[in-house]
Every structure is written in structure tokens, then in C-alpha cells.
């Protein structure tokens, strides 16, 4: 994870149209951000497009980053996730691209990297809230992980888990509530 103070100073220079700072910002953050986009989109071409659009937005809108309000990596992650989710939710992609939940899209996700639930558990370990996460019911945890890391919609979750959409919505809502409480305890 790149150093926050460094990223903040790079973003401040990007506001002033400093290309060298922009290049350094790209070098420092693009692997993390590309990993995020690739997880959500599971297609290299789409993830590359999203990364390009996100960095173009970062170049033009770096002035909208508020250091007092959020960490630089939080802002950068949001820019990438929002763009990727917009692509995922675009009607055209849904029609032509039936979403595969399993990581079988060739080399889209590197070998040996954990599944969504594994990622959620790793994140919980890193935040020292594993016990709190483990206390969340299995289906709720599964919904959280698939929705967050794979960007599955309610109906896609219902299809994948073979459960009615109503149950999925309830699991997800409860799971999110529990997760928030776990994470609030940290802060």
C-alpha cells in the first residue's frame, strides 16, 4: 500500500498539472487499482478501459479530492470502483456478457489469489476484526463477499446462490449492517 502522505503530495501536484507527479501516482497506485477493477469486471479489456477512464478522471478532477475528508487511496479506490460498477451495471454489458461467478475467465484473476470470501476474510484479518466477521451468518458473509468483490447485483446473487431474490436482499442488508458494526468498532 503506497504511503498516504506521498500520494497526497502527488495529488496536490497533479492539480497543478504536473505530469511527472501524475506518472509517479500511476506507478504507485495502478497495480492496486487495476487489481480492484479486474476483480469486479473479470475481463482484461474492460478492466484496462476502466483504469484508463479512472486515471483520466483523476487527472482532470484531482481538485475534487479533499485531504481532510478522506485518505488518498480511499478516493482513488472510489473513482475506480464507481467507474467499474457503472460498466457492470450498463445494460449493454448485461445483455452480452453473462456474468460468470467462477474465476474461469482465463488469466483474468491471477492464479492462487483467493476467492471473494477469502478476500473478505483476509481484509478482516488485516483489520483485526476476524472474530466479528466470523460471527456473521454464512449466507450473509457469502453475499457480502460476492457483492463487494465481484460486483454481483441482487438478481445475479440470487441466481448464483440459488435462493429467492427476497432472501438475498435480506441477507445482504443484514450482512452490511453487521459489517458496519464490525468496522465501526475499529474506528
Amino acid at each position, binding site marked *: *500500500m503506497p504511503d498516504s502522505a506521498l500520494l497526497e503530495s502527488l495529488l496536490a501536484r497533479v492539480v497543478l*498539472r504536473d*505530469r511527472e507527479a*501524475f*506518472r509517479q501516482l*500511476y506507478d504507485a497506485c*495502478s*497495480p*492496486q487499482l*487495476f*487489481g*480492484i477493477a*479486474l*476483480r*469486479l469486471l473479470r475481463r482484461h479489456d474492460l*478492466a*484496462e478501459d476502466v*483504469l*484508463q477512464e479512472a*486515471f*483520466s478522471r483523476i*487527472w*482532470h478532477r484531482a481538485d475534487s479530492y479533499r485531504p481532510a*475528508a*478522506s*485518505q488518498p*487511496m*480511499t*478516493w482513488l*479506490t*472510489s473513482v475506480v*470502483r464507481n467507474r467499474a*460498477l*457503472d460498466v*457492470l*451495471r*450498463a*445494460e449493454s454489458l448485461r445483455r452480452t456478457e453473462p456474468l460468470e461467478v467462477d474465476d474461469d475467465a482465463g488469466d483474468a484473476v*491471477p492464479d492462487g*489469489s483467493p476467492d471473494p470470501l477469502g*478476500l*473478505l476474510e*483476509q*481484509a478482516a484479518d*488485516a*483489520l483485526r476484526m476476524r472474530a466479528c466477521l466470523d460471527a456473521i451468518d454464512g449466507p450473509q458473509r457469502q453475499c*457480502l463477499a460476492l*457483492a*463487494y*468483490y465481484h*460486483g*454481483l*447485483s*441482487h438478481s445475479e446473487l440470487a441466481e448464483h446462490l440459488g435462493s429467492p431474490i427476497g432472501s438475498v436482499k435480506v441477507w*445482504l*442488508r443484514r450482512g*452490511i449492517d453487521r*459489517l*458496519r458494526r464490525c*468496522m465501526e468498532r475499529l474506528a
Partner: protein
Amino acid sequence: MKYNRTDDSAELLDRLAASYVFGTSGSRARRRFERLVRSNAAAARALQSWEARSAALSAAIPPVSPPPGVWARIEQRIGPAPQTASRRWAGWLRPALGFAFGLIAMVGLVRWQPQWVLPSDLPPKAVLPASYVGLLLDASGRPAALASSLKHGAQISVKLLQPLALPAGKVAILWALPDKAPPFVLARLGGDTKQLLTMPGSSEALLASVNELAVSVEDAAGTPASPAAPFLLRGHCVKLW
């Protein structure tokens, strides 16, 4: 999920923010929430909290280096690198030189074979080419105004190549910047594209040692003794003959 002003509860905003960050809402709900965040501080705070949680969850994702071509395409998207000072100089020097050589060629032609250029029913003296010419550039280096004056005339003709953006109650003043003396006022500019302004003396007397012309924005009342910084437009002034 529908948002009504009446259930402006922290809990609802928190759920909306969570669905937005998790991405479980559809495109239209996403746009609706984005609009809400722009106008509602509580919604913006709820989003901020969830974005911070989201970044913590995303930190577990293993990094993947993007292919090298991505950076090149990003550079293409954001446009060419801004010009350095020397390239900006070269950027305007070429059209300025072209313009000057064109004028010199014109002067030569008019003197040598006036009937080729001037209608023969006009006495040749009626259309003498300008003796002093200035090309003024804006802050980004684009040509913005052209000034020219006859050798012994007290008038300077100004053509605005792009409209002057003046705040209310302000006027644009054309200055002469002599080589070794403080700037002095040549004329007050109007808003017309083409204008003929009267100077406080003949161009030969005023402009002989002037290397540059500039335009500043000044208060409408009175005549300033020195220009307000920074100049709106500025450019070289050359004597052609």
C-alpha cells in the same frame, strides 16, 4: 430504494450509501444517489464512511500490474504535454515571423509595382502599409489582438482576434512598453473587433524605442499611471520600415 425527504434518517442514508458502494443498486439508483450526495451533507458523510470501509476491504485484493500500453493510452486521453517556455516562444514566433515577412514583401511590392496591389484609381499615397505592427498574445500564448500604425499617423488601428473578457466597470488599456523607460498609455480600447484609436502623439515619436505592446485591465474611472499586473495580453511590437 426510494428516497423521500420525510425519512431523512441516518439509517436510510447509511443503507443507500452502502448499496452505492457495494454496487448493488442499478444505474438509475446510482445517479439518484450521486445527485443526493451533492445536495445533502448527511448523505455525503454517509458515503464518506462507506468509502473508507470500502478502501479497507479493497486493500486485501492482490495488486496486478496493468500492461504497459495502458499508460500510453492514458497520456493520449489527457492530451499533449503542456508546452515549455521555449516551445511557447517557438509556437508564436513562427506565425509572427511569417506575418512580418508577408508585410515586408507587401511593402516592397507596393513600392515597386503599386498598380499590382492598389486599385489604379487611388493615389498610391492613400494606402501606405503600416510602419509599426504589434501582435499581442493572451496568457496561453494564442494571438489575441493585432495593432498597427502608420509611420507619421497619430492613430493606431487595433483588430481583436478574440473578444476581450472584461469584468463590469473595467476597461482595457493599451500600453507601450519602451526598452528603457516605464510603460505609458497609448489608448483606451473599445469592444469592437476593429477599432481606430488616437494616440497622444505620432507613432514615429511614440513607438520608435518600444519593443512591446500590452493590454491591462483597469478601473473605468481615470487614467492609470502604471499598468495593473498582470497584463491581459502582451506581445512584440516591430518597426517594419
